[in-house]
């Protein structure tokens, strides 16, 4: 089963790239050149690799958040808003509070998780208490989070004068790697390498552990698969819905916090959704809704976006081709049956008539 999934995912990626190539060819660009640029854009220098990782980190986390919610039977479209809340709180803690290094970062991360957890948990609460579908509530909460964040950035104590952004976090709250750590790795450390990726991987394993090896995970999965049976077995379904959304929210919030504390050090005024949460949905799906799968899917996604956007300046090909490729990949991942059909076509033809008849 699992091997099959992996195989299907790889085939879907291949199909996505091939169709992307055909489209490029159709409008007169050389797809080999485009993919060459992409590959060079990701692997061409240690620095590019570290940038790919940096870009992937928040996507891995929002992906895990969405995947976790899926496992518990919920659809978290709200990763976007939870990301914003996490980023906001991390920045505020990072700027307003004065704490020793390391501790400051940890406090900022935890509070961001807590706030975003409450934000997500609110959707869970509305579902458990009033039966309101979480898809609607999280969509609404995304927009509310966006405006809330802007509201705070405009607050004169928080806004950095002469800019459209907040104040920067204090260096004590940063989770960047200590400077001068790795000159040995060439330009790898030229990018703002930070602990975020490590945190993301730890979170992936933690979530996998929670889901598979703890009583909480057992409860959450039971509720996710069959609420009625879970309720019958004595599991508190409502509490678990809230818990599930809180954890999902906290992970997305962590994504926002890691992004701020590791890379941007500030939040700016948002004129539109940035898409970290929506991309997380795709990451989760490509990763087969498994936390570990999300690591790889997030890296793939980060690479496509980071490397893919280089084709426009380098050869003038519209970089939207990347979204098309991603769309096609996700589309084919949705259809394991079709891929199965494609891959078994040859063997089926060999067996021929017999199979035909029983159909």
């Amino acid at each position, binding site marked *: 089963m699992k091997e099959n999934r992996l195989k299907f995912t790889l085939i879907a990626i291949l199909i996505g790239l091939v169709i992307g190539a055909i*489209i490029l060819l159709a*409008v007169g660009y050389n797809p080999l050149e485009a993919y060459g640029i992409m590959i060079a854009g990701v692997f061409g220098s240690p620095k590019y690799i570290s940038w790919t990782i940096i870009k992937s980190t928040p996507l891995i986390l929002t992906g895990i958040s969405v995947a976790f919610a899926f496992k518990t039977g919920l*659809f978290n*479209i709200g990763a976007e808003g939870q990301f914003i809340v996490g980023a906001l709180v991390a920045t505020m803690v990072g700027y307003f509070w004065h704490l020793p290094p390391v501790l400051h970062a940890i406090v900022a991360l935890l509070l961001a998780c807590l706030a975003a957890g409450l934000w997500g948990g609110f959707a869970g609460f*509305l579902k458990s208490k*009033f*039966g*309101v*579908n979480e*898809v*609607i*509530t999280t*969509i*609404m*909460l995304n*927009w*509310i989070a966006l*405006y*809330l964040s*802007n*509201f705070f950035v*405009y607050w004169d104590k928080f806004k950095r004068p002469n800019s459209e952004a907040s104040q920067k976090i204090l260096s004590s709250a940063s989770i960047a790697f200590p400077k001068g750590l790795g000159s040995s790795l060439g330009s790898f450390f030229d990018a703002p390498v930070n602990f975020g990726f490590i945190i993301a991987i730890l979170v992936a394993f933690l979530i996998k552990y929670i889901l598979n090896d703890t009583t909480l995970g057992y409860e959450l999965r039971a509720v996710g698969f069959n609420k009625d049976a879970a309720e019958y077995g004595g599991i508190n379904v409502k509490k678990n819905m809230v818990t599930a959304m809180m954890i999902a929210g906290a992970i997305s919030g962590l994504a926002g916090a890691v992004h701020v504390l590791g890379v941007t050090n500030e939040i700016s005024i948002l004129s*539109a*959704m940035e898409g970290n949460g*929506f991309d997380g*949905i*795709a990451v989760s*799906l490509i990763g087969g809704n498994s936390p570990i799968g999300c690591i790889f899917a997030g890296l793939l996604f980060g690479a496509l976006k980071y490397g893919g956007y280089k084709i426009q300046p380098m050869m003038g090909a*519209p970089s*939207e*081709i*990347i*979204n*098309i490729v*991603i*769309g*096609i*990949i*996700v*589309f084919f*991942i*949705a*259809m394991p*049956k*079709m891929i199965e*059909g494609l891959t078994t076509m040859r063997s089926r033809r060999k067996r021929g008539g017999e199979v035909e008849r029983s*159909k």
Partner: protein
Amino acid sequence: MNALNDLGLIIGISLMYAAPLMYTALGGVMTENSGVVNIGLEGMMTIGAFVGATVGFYSGNPWLAFLCAGLAGGVLALLHAVACVTFSADQVVSGIAINFLGPGLSLFLSRVFFDGATMTKPIPLDQKMPRPLNGVFAQNSFLDLVFNQYATVYLAFLLVFIVWYILYKTKIGLRIRAVGEHPRAADTLGIDVYKVKYLAVILSGVFAGFGGAAMSLAAVSNFRATLISGQGFIALAAMIFGKWTPQGSMWACLLFGVAQGLVVYLGGTDIRVSSQLLAMIPYVITLIILMSFVGKATGPAANGIPYEKNEE
């Protein structure tokens, strides 16, 4: 008279906001009543907006453009149907894919057709959707503010009625709902479940495409990358809010429109509220109403479950 005019303004804004949402929400009603979840409405709306603006610009015929927009949405929906109906795909996954494909294709093609720009050229007023009651009432009078709307607004209400009629009064509607509730039952009665689902899903794309065109051919007169940013999801929410019925979805869209109208109205008064907090109002109102009045809503029984014929 001023208060009346203010009311007229709010109603007018509500209608402008609600119309594109209504088309798209009706698309949602259509597909989900047949048991296929469609998260991809946003993507279908985007391609509709783009194609509408492009065809409108090049042909000068808004109706042709409107139809092409529906067609484009329908083509994306066809992909969704192939995945979800024929290949029993996970419907959420396929919908998310559509949400990448829709904007991706729109911008890609926009660059191809408009000289590298991610924005189409504006359509002159006389080649946009007509406003049937334009000039009938005195400008900026209450009646003018309320009724001087684009044909797309009136069509949206007409479509609510049509979808309601089809779903609840006709043979095909009965079949669509049966397929969404209990596909196997329909199957055993000789109904071609797949065909019915294909029809409903494609129509949902057509409607979402109309919704996009209602933005790019009426609300404004051009497409740009940010024109459709979240409306598809709001429409989806409105459909759930409206309990999967056309009339319920209509009310939900209107509610959202009214809230936006209020925001604009309040922003123009002397009440000094931060514009960020004002902007939150529609979303907060929706949440509060969901909490206090609507509560639990369940869709068609077999919604989201791929139907596989009995063969292995």
